[in-house]
């Protein structure tokens, strides 16, 4: 959903698993929708980890654990690998997450998050490991994500790091603009490129 992003302070949902692929984030059987209903995808986020075959919540999965909540998901290495399905980003946004903090992201999924106004924050292993341990010990731990300053801060330990984001994408997020708005304003350059190739 297009929304302006600046500073977020929130508790976190810990998911200390590496190589979380987009088939886990949203299984293929939910890709048959022809509309972009984030609520539908959000309700099925991590479906096969979250519910058993009868549709009952599985005890032990973090989204079913009432101690944890907030709009920041904290993952491990290589988050969002595999399929390019943007439905994974819709599910994350639809569930209510606005930030995903991970040690690293798969490329396509990272773009998909940005295009859905979810901020992927790549932090060091030391930062993420400390944060995971901190959340496990105290689920009320809060993190502050400051997009204008490009910093992420563990508000319990005070550990802070800067993160990378392309200036253009930062501008888009802070102003709730998408790529197509930009491209449509650039049509004359597209046409002159095409002429040059004829």
């Amino acid at each position: 959903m297009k929304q302006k992003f600046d500073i977020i302070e929130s508790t976190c949902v810990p998911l200390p698993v590496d190589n979380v692929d987009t088939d886990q984030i949203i299984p293929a059987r939910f890709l048959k929708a022809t509309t972009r209903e984030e609520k539908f995808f959000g309700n099925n986020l991590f479906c096969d980890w979250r519910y058993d075959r009868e549709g009952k919540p599985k005890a032990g999965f973090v989204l079913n654990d009432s101690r944890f909540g907030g709009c920041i998901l904290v993952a491990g290495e290589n988050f969002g690998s595999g399929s390019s399905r943007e439905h994974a980003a819709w599910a994350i946004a639809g569930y209510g997450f606005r930030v995903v903090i991970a040690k690293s992201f798969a490329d396509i999924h990272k773009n998909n998050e940005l295009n859905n106004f979810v901020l992927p924050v790549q932090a060091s292993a030391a930062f993420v490991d400390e944060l995971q341990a901190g959340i496990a010990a105290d689920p009320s731990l809060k993190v502050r994500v400051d997009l204008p300053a490009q910093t992420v801060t563990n508000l319990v330990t005070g550990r802070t790091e800067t993160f990378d984001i392309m200036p253009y994408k930062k501008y888009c997020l802070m102003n709730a603009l998408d790529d197509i708005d930009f491209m449509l304003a650039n049509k004359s350059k597209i046409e002159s490129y095409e002429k040059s190739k004829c």
Partner: protein
Amino acid sequence: MNTLFDKIWDAHIVDKPEGGPDQVYIDRLYCHEVTSPQAFDGLRARGIKCLRPERIFCMPDHNTPTHDQDKPITEPLSKTQVDTLERNAREFGLTYYGMMSPDNGIIHVVGPEKGLSLPGMTIVCGDSHTSTHGAMGAVAFGIGTSEVEMVMASQCILQKKPKSMSIRVEGELGPGVTAKDLALYLMMKLTTSGATGYFIEYRGSTVRSLSMEGRLTLSNLSIEMGARGGFIAPDETTFEYLKGREYAPKGEEWDKAVAFWRTLKSGDDAVFDREVVFDAADIKPMITYGTNPGMGMPIDGTIPAGTAQKALDYMDFKAGECLLGHKVDYVFLGACTNGRIEDFRAFASIAAGRRKAPGVTAWLVPGSWMVKRQIEAEGLDKVLEAAGFEIRQPGCSACLAMNDDKIPAGKYAVSTSNRNFEGRQGPGSRTMLASPLTAAAAAVTGVVTDPREFL
């Protein structure tokens, strides 16, 4: 610097906005039914059309059943999604190869075989396996649905230029070792995130000696190493494959095109951001034991100590276990990875004169109608039928189980597809990825078998 990737990418730059990603012109956009409907809705909401409809090709492949395609799809959601693509293609004036059209098939099989994917092109699709088209010497990569909409609207994409990586493989592949084994070996060595942020150029004598089908398999799996894409510089093998194909240039245009395509190679002074080298002699037939494609090993190897317990629990395997002789319930030959004619020839080479093992359910799914026609023209269908196998109708099928072809929970499948993620082939399914030869060896024995026993 001066890599083939640089040459193709830089030749497609429309604009370099300050502090932003490159605006890259896209020569070809492919659309399937799963990742496009919301993009078409976006265009309608903005009240705009596709800027260059002639550059966009649509076909359903993920939801299509692999039997009775002449009848309406019975599953209502699948039917709606396929019908929606057709309606959108008509409304926006795009080429559409519908179910039962002789041109239909998996988008990544159809593009190359129709000559739609050509050397030097930029190609995108809302599908991570778009990297397949890199085999033609094109820069091809998967994108999300918002990006599909962007390309429909502007024929361009905003994208940060990936770094370049050279994967050089030298030497001859051993008997029974295929392009699929090479790719599984690279994934084992590099892991599923080893090439994140990079575009791969596959080089070296091993790569040069691969057939076009083998190159398509290798390029297809680039994404499983985390790469945006992977490609192979075009050469005589490429030109020979393309000549005479429907959308390939003809006559004088062909000669001009080939002359240009011959220039598409990395300079002798090319500098890659990362270079790795492997020896083909080290590669054996491969199989995966875990829940990502990087969790592979030589078929006669043992599951490494230290393998993630979550993956072992899911597969019901143990560290130290050898998979040879392990029961196999399902065999799947097909997908954009291994659904081409050469894959069926390989499978048939082992199945010929033997019988499908009792207790094995085998799904042999050609990647396109063109592949199916070729199978029939070569008589492979008769060979396979005599061995107890049935050739189904084309589509993505059990690779991601969006149609009826689902591996049941707890069952073991040897699959020639590309992903062994939890639940990928159906909730609870257990996938072992392997080559068509290894799949055939499993199909006739009912257990994981080294295909070299049949050579």
